C-alpha cells in the first residue's frame, strides 16, 4: 500500500501539497486502490510519520517538500526495503527517488506570455515567504519576461516572514493592488493561499494574473492569463502506479513536469503569436538552445 505525506502547509494549501493530493486521488479513482495519507502537526512529526509508515509496511512512501530532505537522509537507511520518493529535494540514498521540477522553465514560459500580454511593459511577481524555492520561480519568470521584452520591468514582492505569509489573501490582494498602481498589468502569484487574494485583486482590477502549481485558470475564467503548472500530481500518480526508481528524477519541460496551462478558460487570452512564442521557447528549452538559469545553482539571478 503506497503512502503520501504532506508538508506542514497541509493537504489543501492551494499549492503543491494539493497537487500531490490530486495525483494520489486520481490514482485511487482509477485503480480503486487505497493509500495512506498523513498530515503533520509539527516539525518533530516528520521523522515520526516516516518511521511509523515504514514500519507499517507502506511502500512506496511519497513526501512533498524540501523540508523532509534532512530527516529522510536519516530515516531511509534504517528501512532499506522501503522505497521513498521526495518531491522538491535531492536526497542521495539507495532507496530514495528524488523528484525535482524545473520551475524556472515553466515560469520562463509564463514570463513570455506575461510579456506579450502586458500593454504597460510592467508585470509583477508576488511570492509567499522569501525562500530560495520561490526565488526559483521569480528568476525563471523574469528571464522569460526579459527575453520577450528586454526593456520591461518586473515588480517583486514577498508577502511575509512567518508561515502566515502563505495564508494571507488580504495582504496578497493589497500587494497586487500596489503593483497595479505601479503599472503592472500581469501578476504572477507564487504564494499558496495568499495567491487566491492576488488572483482576485487582479480580476477585480481588470488585469491579468498567472496562477501557480495547479491549474488555476478556472478561478477567474478569462482573467487568469495562464497557470504555471507543476505536475506534482503526475509525480505522485506515477510513483503510486509504477513504483519508485531510486535516483534523481528531473521533471522538466521536456518531461512535461512543468508547463503553462492553456484551456477553455484562458483560450481567448492566448493570441496565436503568444502561442507560437511559447511553443518556440518550449522547443528551444527542450532542445537545449535556451538555458534557463536556475537560481538555486548560485543564489543569483542573471536578470533583474
Amino acid at each position, binding site marked *: 500500500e503506497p503512502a503520501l505525506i504532506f508538508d506542514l502547509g497541509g493537504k489543501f494549501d492551494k499549492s503543491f501539497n494539493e497537487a500531490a493530493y490530486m495525483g494520489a486521488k486520481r490514482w485511487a479513482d482509477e485503480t480503486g486502490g487505497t493509500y495512506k495519507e*498523513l498530515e503533520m502537526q*509539527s*516539525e518533530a512529526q516528520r*521523522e*515520526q*510519520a516516516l518511521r511509523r509508515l515504514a514500519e507499517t509496511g507502506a511502500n512506496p512512501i511519497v513526501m512533498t517538500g524540501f*523540508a523532509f530532505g534532512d530527516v529522510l537522509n536519516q530515516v531511509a537507511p534504517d528501512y532499506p526495503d522501503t522505497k521513498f520518493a521526495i518531491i522538491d*529535494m535531492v536526497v542521495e540514498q539507495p532507496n530514495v527517488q528524488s523528484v525535482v521540477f524545473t520551475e524556472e522553465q515553466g515560469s520562463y514560459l509564463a514570463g513570455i506570455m506575461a510579456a506579450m500580454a502586458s500593454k504597460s511593459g510592467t508585470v509583477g511577481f508576488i511570492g509567499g515567504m522569501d525562500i530560495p524555492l520561490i526565488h526559483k520561480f521569480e528568476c525563471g519568470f523574469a528571464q522569460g519576461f526579459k527575453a520577450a521584452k528586454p526593456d520591461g520591468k518586473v515588480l517583486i514582492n514577498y508577502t511575509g*516572514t512567518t508561515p502566515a505569509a502563505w495564508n494571507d489573501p488580504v495582504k496578497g490582494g493589497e500587494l497586487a493592488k500596489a503593483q497595479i498602481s505601479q503599472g503592472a498589468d500581469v501578476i504572477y502569484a507564487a504564494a499558496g493561499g495568499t495567491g487566491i487574494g492576488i488572483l482576485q485583486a487582479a480580476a477585480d482590477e481588470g488585469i491579468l494574473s498567472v496562477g501557480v502549481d495547479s491549474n488555476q485558470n478556472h478561478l477567474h475564467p478569462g482573467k487568469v492569463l495562464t497557470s504555471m503548472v507543476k505536475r506534482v500530481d503526475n509525480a505522485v500518480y506515477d510513483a503510486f502506479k509504477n513504483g519508485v526508481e531510486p535516483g534523481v528524477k528531473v521533471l522538466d519541460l521536456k518531461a512535461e513536469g512543468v508547463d503553462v496551462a492553456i484551456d477553455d478558460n484562458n483560450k481567448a487570452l492566448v493570441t496565436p503569436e503568444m502561442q507560437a512564442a511559447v511553443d518556440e521557447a518550449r522547443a528551444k528549452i527542450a532542445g537545449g538552445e535556451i538555458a534557463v538559469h536556475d537560481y538555486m*545553482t548560485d543564489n543569483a539571478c542573471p536578470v533583474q
Partner: protein
Amino acid sequence: MNKMPKWADVILTPVISLVLAMAISAFVILAIGESPTVALTTMIDGALGSSYGWGFTLYYATNFIFTGLAVMVAYHASLFNIGGEGQAAMGGLGVALVLLSLPLPHWALALPAAMIGAALFGAAWALIPAWLQAKRGSHIVITTIMFNFIAAAALNYILVNLLRPVGSMDPASGRFPEATHLPKLSDMALALGFEWGKNTPVNISFFVAVIACVLVWLLIWRSRLGFEIRAFGKSEPAALYAGINPVRITVIAMLISGGLAGLMAINNVMGEAERLVLNAVEGAGFIGIAVALMGRNHPLGVFLAALLFGFLYQGGGELALWTSIPRELIIVIQALVILFTGALDNMVRMPLERMFLAMRKRGA
C-alpha cells in the same frame, strides 16, 4: 476561611473541567461525523499508551515547560510577556551559532555552551522590550508582539542568506556536528539495559526543563530576588517604599523570562532537529501563555499543564496521522481544554464550594 479542602481545589476542579471539555469535544467530533470513542482511544493510546507515545508527549511538554516558565516569571513581575515566540526563535539562533562555530568535542560540553547561547539570545530579545517598558513606558505587550514579528523576519533573513548551506533548497542551517548531538532518553534507557521510547525525540533537555522548574520555584518563592519580583508585581508603590528598584526588577525579570524562552531551543533545535529550521518554534511561545496561566503561575502547575499540552499535541498528532479526522480538530480540543480548565473553572468550582460548605455545615 477556606470554602473547600485544598485537594478538591487542586485536583477535583481541574479533573471535572477536563471531563467537561472532553465531553464537548466528543460532541464536536460527532457533529463532523466521526467517532468520539475512536478519537479518544487514538489520542490516549498514541500519547500515553506506549513508551513511544510518552517519548513524544514528553518532548512537546519540554518545549512548553520552558515557554510556560518564561511567561510565568514575567507574570510575577506583572509583565505580560507575549514575546516567548520570538525569544525562543532567537534562542534557536543562539544554539545554532554556538554549535556551528565552536568545535565542541562532546555533548556534555556542547549542552552548557548551547544553553548559554540560547539563554543569552532569548534574553537579549527580551531586553529591549523590558528596557523600553521600564524607561520609556512603552507597553510590554505591544513591544513583545512586535518583537515576535521582527524575530521572524530576522531569522528568515539569516537562514536564507547566511546560515543556509550553498545549494540547499531548505532555508535551514547545516546539521550540527555529530559530537554535539544530545543523548535521547531512549539511548539512556538502552544504556540502563531496557528499551524505552525508541525513535522519539525526547532527550536530556527534559531533565534540564525539570531542573528549570525547580530553580524557578526556588527563585520565585525562596530567593530574595523572587521576593522582590513578586512584591513589585503586586504593587509598584510598595516596592518603591521597600527600596526595590522598578527598572532593575523589570529588566531582570524579563531577562530571566527571555532566557527561559530561549532555552527551549536546546530541546527542539539541538535535541530534535539538530539544525535550525525556519519557524522552529511553531507556536510554542503562545502555548506557553496558556500553560503558565493554567498552571496558576506555579512551576508545578506549569509542569502539569505542559504535560497536558504535550499529551494534546501528541495525541492530536496521532489523530491527524492515523484517522481521517482533520488535524484542526486538535486545535478545537485544545481550545476547549484551555477554556474549561483555565477560564471556566469557576463554573465547576462554585457549585463544588457550595457542596462542601453544605457538607461542613451538616457535619458541624
